């Protein structure tokens, strides 16, 4: 009978040989395949150096196995030797029995240990992960005043633990998936069984497993694989680095997708309104939460429309300006050598450059960079009559509005749309801006997030928690979001 190239055989030496070949063990120093005598038969343990907790392996696997008397296990059938060790000797929580080489290699690569026995065509995969990981820290991009300050890390197990600490319910289900082609990435789907809609779950599972790219390393890449409209400027999933926010997604009936190696959790399906909410809104009294949401919305609208509207009014609709303001703009614009549209583009680009440079510059330099660039460069540009001071104020106000958007991905999308409106305002005034606005509104209203309308429950109307702009008092929030199962 020919050896099956995919599955383990009963011959330990052959199995070890296959593993060595697959890993290129002769040149690959990370692979550890440790043979030892465990009672009446020979066993082997395969791990990746640095990925496992060596103390646990020593104390709970190797020592107990090697301490067995020479006749221990001789009565056990050869094909059940691994079971014998698991039931009687090894004190690590076993995960699964597997016999497929590919699965076992993937598990070993993820930091688990693989226990093989001579005569047994199955191996036991044990969770002995012990690689170095970052401690639970503070959120970098979603800082709040009143809410908790924990954030997700790169370890999927730690992230799941953080969620389970908040959502202590038996219905909380974790499904693990490996996605990608050559280099698999481990993802976890978390949902509340009975609350999340089954059809929606099936859709997400299908999209994740159908991923055909070689690898998908981060949550952002996973998001790009499951979204409905990859060409759209607005993200269709909401991402968060906060466990409390992810827990609120679960409670709403959404599915949370965690990716191993990424500190972001994805909530799907989501709506556009989710991307404007923060966990501070829920932590505060409803009046404060509502007020802050309105401020954020105003900030977003200012960021989106102010530069374009300013250019439109100056080029096409000067009758809207008061004579005092017009005289001021007229004087300052007369001294500036470049057209106002070019000025606005350059100023907006300069603002974005300063923001990006501030993000990338290390440590305290990043903080100082913004002040230096803004004050010195801006002041010099105005004094040299390169830019109009009013335009500088407009671009700065618009930039401040952009920082009010809590979701980073959405803020970048809005920034691109702002440039479109700027161009529209310069080319066709308020009319072209209105046309563009309507086109974008139509596109946004037709978009879906994993099958659910992105702009619901505003349009189309859907029954559920009316938590859009006004953060209703907690006692008024009697229903979950519309994408939960109907009986909830």
């Amino acid at each position, binding site marked *: 009978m020919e050896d099956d190239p995919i599955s383990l055989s009963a011959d330990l030496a052959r199995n070890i040989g296959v593993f060595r070949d697959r890993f290129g063990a002769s040149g690959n120093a990370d692979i550890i395949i440790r043979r030892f005598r465990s009672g009446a038969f020979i066993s082997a343990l395969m791990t990746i150096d640095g990925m496992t907790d060596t103390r646990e392996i020593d104390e709970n696997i190797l020592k107990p196995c090697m301490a067995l008397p020479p006749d221990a296990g001789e009565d056990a059938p050869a094909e059940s030797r691994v079971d014998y060790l698991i039931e009687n000797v090894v004190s690590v929580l076993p995960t699964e029995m597997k016999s497929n080489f590919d699965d076992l290699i993937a598990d070993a690569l993820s930091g688990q240990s693989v226990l093989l026995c001579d005569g047994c065509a199955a191996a036991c995969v044990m969770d002995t992960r012990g690689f170095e990981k970052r401690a639970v820290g503070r959120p970098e991009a979603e800082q709040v005043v009143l809410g908790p300050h924990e954030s997700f890390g790169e370890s999927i197990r730690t992230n799941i633990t953080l969620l389970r600490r908040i959502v202590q319910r038996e219905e909380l289900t974790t499904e693990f998936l490996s996605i990608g082609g050559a280099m698999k990435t481990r993802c976890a789907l978390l949902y509340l069984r009975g609350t999340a809609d089954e059809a929606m779950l099936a859709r997400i599972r299908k999209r994740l497993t159908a991923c055909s790219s070689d690898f998908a390393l981060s949550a952002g890449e996973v998001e790009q694989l499951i979204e409905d409209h990859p060409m759209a400027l607005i993200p269709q999933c909401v991402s968060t680095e906060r466990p409390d926010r992810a827990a609120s997604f679960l409670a709403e009936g959404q599915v949370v997708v965690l990716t191993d190696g990424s500190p972001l959790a994805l909530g799907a399906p989501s709506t556009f309104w989710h991307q404007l909410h923060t966990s501070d809104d829920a932590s505060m009294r409803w009046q404060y939460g509502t007020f802050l949401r309105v401020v954020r919305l105003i900030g977003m609208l200012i960021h989106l429309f102010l530069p374009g509207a300013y250019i439109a009014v*100056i*080029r*096409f609709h*000067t*009758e809207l*300006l008061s*004579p*005092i*303001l*017009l*005289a*001021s*703009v*007229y*004087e*300052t*614009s*007369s001294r500036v050598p470049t*057209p*106002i549209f070019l000025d606005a583009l350059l100023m907006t680009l300069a603002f974005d450059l300063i923001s990006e440079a501030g993000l990338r510059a290390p440590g305290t330099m990043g903080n100082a960079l913004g002040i230096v660039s803004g004050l010195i460069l801006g002041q010099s540009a105005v004094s040299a009559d390169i830019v109009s001071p009013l335009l500088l104020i407009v671009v700065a106000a618009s930039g401040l509005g952009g920082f009010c958007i809590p979701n980073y991905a959405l803020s970048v999308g809005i920034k691109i749309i702002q440039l479109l409106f700027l161009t529209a305002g*310069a*080319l*066709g*005034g308020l009319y*072209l801006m209105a046309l563009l606005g309507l086109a974008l509104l139509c596109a946004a209203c037709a978009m879906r997030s994993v099958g659910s309308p992105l702009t619901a429950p505003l349009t189309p109307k859907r029954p559920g928690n009316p938590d859009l702009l006004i953060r209703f008092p907690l006692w008024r929030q009697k229903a979950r979001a519309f994408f939960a199962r109907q009986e909830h």
Partner: protein
Amino acid sequence: MLLTFLPLLLGGCTGGQEIESSLFVIAMAVDAAPEGNLTITVKALSGSQESAASGASGAQSEDGSTENLEQTETGYIVLSATAPSCLRALGLLGATTPRTVNLSQLQEIVISQTLAETDATLSILKQIHAIYRANDEAVVVVTPDHAGDFIRRQRAVLGLRLSKYLEVLFEHYEQLDVIPPSPNLSAVIAAMESAATDAAAVYAAGNDFDNILLLQGKTDIDRLPGHLPRTAPAPNEYMGAALFSGPRMTGTLTGSEVSLFCLMTGKASTRVSVMDGAQYKTRLQTRVKRRIDPDGTLFVSLRLTLTLSAGNQQRTEEELAAEIAQDCVNVLQKLQAASCDAVGFGKIRIRAFPDIPAWERLNWPAQYETLPVRVTADVKILQ
């Protein structure tokens, strides 16, 4: 998909302009010139802190019109052009500057009285409004002087930092409810076109202290200079209202007559009255009742409260009421004599007609002049 990119290719055709390529006119003056021509004088923003170059450019165009560029206070330039029509003159101004004339910030249009007393006023105003899209809120002013000189005399007052505004005497008076209710460009055009009502514009002149006739008025309000802070007397003086019958100017009202007129139209609820040396603050208690009686009498009823603010009260309520009523009758009769239905009795009369042909058969302007007038005033004095 080609269609969706077409707008980008057509971008230049939307008519957008850099702001510095526009000539923003703040004040415009229209005078009659020899040989049936019109002289248009405009005061515009210069766009710089320094004053404009002095001297005349002296350019001559083919049809004989001339253009002059004059020095004025910082921030403004004054330009004038003479041409057979208003549009051609504005076109000449635009060609010589060379910027596009923009009337969206126009604050006032000053027309000389000689021109206002012809039928040309309406067509000039309509051309400016429709073709040059002048600001609807621009105040229409009629002056017995040279209109160009009128706007040259007006001076800008330095207000806020980085801004200047042209002193607009009339805005201040509007707050005192002593200027005609709707002297704005769009309202004047609508009133001139309508058969049911007539226009009343601002009447103003240069403050010539040697000319006693111009300064003669029945009450102090007619001699009151502007209240904006300045070190010298106002160069231009508010005189009252210019009355129009259709497109033609037919009479004037003094300042105090205009305040009574505003009271009767309901556009003003307060005024200052001086009677027998006592000054009263007059306030309307209820809405003014205006109607046309079955016998055709034009009837106005006022209920007023008077509060003594200076001097001693020397008359009873009934006597004061009778004097106010008589003053109102005088104003209405003056309006009738000028064939100017600025109060709006025509708007009341039109309601009785089912359709426009029936209304037009009435010939309201002719009938209006002959109708009797009655005013009743009910006065209560508050201490």
